[in-house]
């Protein structure tokens, strides 16, 4: 790689970083505005939250089932079979639940937002909105990002509960375990520090998914191919951000708690 190519790469990166900062500023300005689009926000909550629940729910349920099936033989070898509910709960609530939900939503929601806004950009619908005097940042972007921030924690909570239910059913494949005993063991093992940082993490995951999806779609180039590129790029970038946020939050919470 020669110096000119490096210079161009740095210039492109700096321009992209600058554009991202401007986009973030516009998002903040439109979010904390008295003209916030509440009805569109509610519609987005339905689109993002309700319509993702089936996928998140089924995946989480299977995850809980598989984890118990995989963990059980090792735990039996150590004579610690009774620890299974506790291990599953801590693993699901602390790490697996938020990250799996985040990754699923990055695939479903970020790509959906990226493709939708990308297609609106390509067909001049966003330009048309802007030129009519309406505010597309407020109507299209702020509502989607805030809806993601609110829906991700809710989806994660529901997903976590379904994972525990899946685990309970998996335990009953081999042994008979009472529903009350299983869930009381599960929840007694949870502490505030297991729960709060994980929930905080999901809000940040939601922000990353919404922001990346909107940014990629809103800045799609002209041409139908760019819609696919925006959707694909949104999934990849949002997924990487989820892992990055995950490690940062884990490091910070380990220092604090």
């Amino acid at each position, binding site marked *: 790689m020669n110096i000119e190519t490096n210079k161009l790469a740095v210039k492109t990166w700096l321009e992209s970083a600058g554009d991202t900062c401007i986009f973030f500023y516009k998002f903040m300005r439109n979010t904390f505005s008295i003209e916030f689009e509440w009805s569109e926000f509610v519609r987005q909550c339905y689109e993002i939250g309700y319509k993702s629940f089936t996928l998140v729910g089924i995946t989480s349920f299977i995850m809980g089932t598989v984890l118990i099936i995989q963990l059980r033989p090792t735990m039996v070898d150590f004579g610690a079979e009774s620890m299974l509910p506790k291990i599953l709960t801590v693993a699901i609530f602390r790490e697996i639940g938020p990250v799996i939900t985040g990754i699923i939503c990055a695939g479903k929601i970020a790509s959906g937002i990226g493709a939708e806004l990308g297609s609106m950009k390509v067909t*001049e619908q966003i330009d048309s909105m*802007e030129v*009519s*005097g*309406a505010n597309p940042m407020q109507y299209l972007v702020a509502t989607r990002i805030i809806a993601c921030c609110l829906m991700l924690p809710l989806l994660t909570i529901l997903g976590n509960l379904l994972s525990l239910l899946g685990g309970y059913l998996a335990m009953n494949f081999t042994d008979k375990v009472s529903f009350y005993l299983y869930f009381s063991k599960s929840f007694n093992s949870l502490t505030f520090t297991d729960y709060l940082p994980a929930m905080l993490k999901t809000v940040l995951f939601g922000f990353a998914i919404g922001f990346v999806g909107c940014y990629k779609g809103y800045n799609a180039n002209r041409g139908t191919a760019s819609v696919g590129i925006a959707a694909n790029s949104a999934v990849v970038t949002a997924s990487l951000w989820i892992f990055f946020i995950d490690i940062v939050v884990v490091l910070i919470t380990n220092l604090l708690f």
Partner: protein
Amino acid sequence: MEDIKVKEERSAPQDTPAEAVITVSHLSKSFGDKQVLKDINLTLKKGENIVVMGKSGEGKSITIQCIVGMQEPDSGSVKVLGKEVLELNDEELKELRKRIGFLFQSAALYDSMSVRDNLSFPLTKVLKIKDQKEIDQRIEEMLDSVGLSDAIDKMPSDLSGGMLKRVGLARTLIVKPEIMLYDEPTTGLDPITGREISHLIVDIQKKYKTSSIIITHDLECAKITANRILVMSEGEYIAEGTYDELQSSDNELVKSFFI
């Protein structure tokens, strides 16, 4: 390039006062090494229809994008309804845009919304009208004026190209703009539908007293709608006049547009 501007008497609309609603002076714009606009000057008078003709990629659409602040020119001045567009802040630009209608080439209807929702969008989001009765009344009235009352509950995907243009026109006109900017209004339409849209543009000019700039390379559309035509080539206006004046021009380049 040879300056052959036709300066004879123009067929301005009968009730046109001399007040200029758009004044573009010495406008230049480049994309990379390519200069798409070179020292453009244009004046649109109140109640007048100007047609800008030229080959594709010559900068016709960029001119009207500069007028609404979608593109920032490299130099020059754009004055719209007495306001210098380049000096406006976001809020002022938003206010100015409420007084300008822009019909995109693709009509740019919001494809996730029905025709009714497309038309109610500018009323609720731009004019902030809350009264549902007034909204319904204005939607019905506007669809009626473009001859599409039956399409009110259809989705954009159910409409033909001509119908999309009409609904796009209705959505733009519903806020009662003082200026209309049409970007290739008849492109992609069959000759009959194209003619209908052209006549609709003239009807709109008469009914709503709008002043318009129409970007096109459709000769028939230019003939029907124009009070004055500007011919553009390589980022410059090379001729100006009425349809008949330009048609009889001696300039080879201008003549080539009217064959």
